């Protein structure tokens, strides 16, 4: 445990761990000291000189990102001298900045704009031509580089050197001729490349996926958890519902990592750009497909399905689910199907590459949630065998595209062998056409729920968007059927 000490910040006594950087201790105390180069996960090179503060007894101002707290330290970040020093550092950052904010995606969340309004507000004295450097450098599949906007804070180069250790970017040459550039022959295509956009405090590194789509001030931001693997990286879903004609009509504009113990400051590109299928082939109607196609109300569907369940009994019933389900969904599933055989393991359709940083092998967020409830999964091979031999009276498919498990032809044949079948999920996928019932479920971005990550950490994700059509969370759907089932039982008893 670090020793707690007292120091003075802007005249107020503050307590902090001894040795904690003043810039961090100030933030803890609610005082934001301007900075560009410092990043808690990337170190404190002290090159931007923005976080300069006055220190009693020091001959010249100090950068607070390299100043450790000690007992009795007397720091002023808001004195006239400190503010003047911060403003002058800002002015020098802007001497060669192109000021092309009207066409810059960073507008609205740009460190230069923000600090100019907070501590700048001066008349420019620049009479010289701006320096010209590369404006549209395709750094990699996800990232666009604008060297003119770059303030050379080195965050991105430190990221590729220290975090991914892939070294695709560097600061080459020197003095006013230097620029962030691709290392010759390299492309910024590592599995975490999107993070350089997040850490870039200006518009030098922008997201090609988000480029020119929608202004950031139209976006709503909701805390969520990435469903892309069992890590459960904390994210923020940025949605565009105020300017629906922008962003090519897509509701989700981008995903951003949210700082947490789980993922630090980062997320992988797979997760970041994995939101695109969210609105593909969405289901909004409650449908009976066979024998007679009809749109049903939830109540009617619940009654019909309850009847089927009673017919088939829970004996011979199989449920094919996926780790996409929330803890609430798993609980409701267990409640509805106490005796059914369950199948939810991650098959090749849901496994992928893992690494030492964040990425986990299981590409679904919540297998652990099922495990925590004591649910056991059979193998999909056994399910196929049981279907083949006609042992399955009913097959309830929850958020799992079986065509990706078994292939389209085989899935079609196998599902057809079940007495009856239900497909429940947000997206139609290949399986949506194969079942006898199709129930629209909400996507994770449309519901509030909990995932239990691979470490057993239960994390809440929040509703960022309204459901499509009649879609409901899986656990509500299970609840409706359960009610119909018990209601029917009561009726029968009466």
């Amino acid at each position, binding site marked *: 445990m670090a020793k707690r000490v007292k120091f003075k910040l802007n005249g107020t006594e503050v307590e902090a761990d001894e040795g904690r950087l003043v810039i961090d201790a100030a933030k803890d105390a609610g005082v934001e000291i301007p900075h560009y180069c410092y990043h808690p996960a990337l170190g404190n090179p002290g090159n931007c000189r923005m976080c300069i503060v006055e220190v009693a007894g020091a001959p010249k101002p100090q950068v607070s990102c390299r100043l450790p707290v000690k007992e009795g330290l007397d720091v002023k970040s808001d004195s006239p001298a400190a503010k003047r020093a911060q403003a002058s550092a800002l002015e020098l950052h802007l001497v060669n900045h192109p000021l092309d904010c009207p066409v810059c995606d960073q507008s609205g969340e740009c460190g230069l704009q923000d600090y100019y309004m907070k501590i700048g507000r001066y008349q420019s004295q620049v009479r010289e031509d701006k320096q010209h450097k590369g404006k549209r450098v395709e750094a990699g599949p996800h990232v666009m580089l604008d060297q003119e906007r770059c303030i050379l804070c080195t965050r991105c*180069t430190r990221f*590729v*050197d220290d975090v991914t250790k892939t*070294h*695709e*970017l*560097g*600061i*080459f*040459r*020197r003095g006013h001729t230097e620029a962030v550039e691709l*290392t*010759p*022959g*390299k492309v910024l295509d590592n599995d975490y490349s999107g993070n350089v956009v997040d850490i870039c405090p200006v518009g030098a590194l922008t997201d090609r996926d988000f480029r020119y789509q929608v202004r950031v001030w139209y976006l709503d931001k909701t805390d969520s958890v990435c469903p892309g693997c069992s890590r459960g990286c904390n994210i923020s879903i940025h949605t565009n519902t105020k300017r629906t004609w922008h962003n090519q009509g897509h509701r989700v504009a981008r995903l951003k990592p949210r700082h947490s113990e789980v993922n630090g400051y980062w997320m992988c590109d797979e997760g970041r750009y994995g939101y695109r299928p969210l609105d593909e082939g969405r289901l909004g109607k409650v449908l009976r497909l066979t024998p007679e196609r009809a749109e049903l109300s939830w109540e009617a569907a619940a009654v019909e399905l309850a009847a089927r369940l009673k017919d088939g009994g829970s004996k011979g019933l199989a449920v094919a689910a996926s780790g996409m389900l929330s803890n609430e969904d798993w609980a409701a599933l267990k409640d509805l199907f106490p005796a059914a055989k369950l199948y939810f393991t991650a098959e090749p359709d849901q496994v992928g590459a893992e690494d030492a940083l964040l990425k986990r092998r299981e590409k679904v967020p919540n297998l652990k949630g099922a495990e925590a409830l004591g649910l056991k999964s059979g193998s999909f091979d056994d399910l196929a065998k049981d279907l083949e031999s006609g042992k399955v009276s009913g097959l309830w498919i929850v958020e799992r595209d079986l065509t990706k498990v078994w292939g389209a032809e085989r899935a079609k044949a196998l599902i057809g062998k079940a007495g009856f079948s239900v497909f429940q999920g947000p997206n139609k996928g290949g399986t949506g056409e194969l079942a006898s019932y199709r129930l629209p479920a909400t996507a994770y971005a449309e519901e509030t729920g909990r995932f239990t990550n691979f470490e057993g950490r239960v994390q809440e994700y929040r509703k960022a968007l309204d459901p499509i059509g009649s879609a409901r969370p899986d656990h509500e759907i299970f609840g409706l059927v359960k009610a119909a089932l018990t209601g029917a039982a009561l009726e029968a008893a009466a």
Partner: protein
Amino acid sequence: MSVKAPTKSPFTPEQETTLAGWTKRYPHSNLGLVEALRSVQGWHRQITPEAAARVAEVFDLPFNRVWGVATFFPTFTQWKTGRHRVGLCHGLSCWLAGSTKMESCLEKTLGVAEKTTTADGKFSWETMECLGACEQAPALQVNDRLVGAATEASVVKLKDLK
């Protein structure tokens, strides 16, 4: 531009030996990097990404670090200098002694602009920061030798170099 670790070294076997030698000269291999790049500049009269990539391999360092060093220091060029690389000091003492006039003299005599190499590859010239020969202003450096108190005549005499 593709400069993935060249399958064929851009260096001769003798040069490879020299490079390996720089990795062993000092208590840590990294300490030999700048000297190794000086050797490369001497051999190739420039440092290309391919050459720097090979040096990075030899020193077991990330390529972006080596490329950073190769582009940082003025001794290293990313353009091919002449066989005779002429530097004209334009530090204050040399400037007071008329280095500006010597610039036009070099351009006229060698027939090329600054940081450009003659068609035969023989000469290139460039202004350099203080060469540490202020008492002999204006100072010229021809390859790695100092030519003090340069005059138009001494520039013309450069043409006699083989």
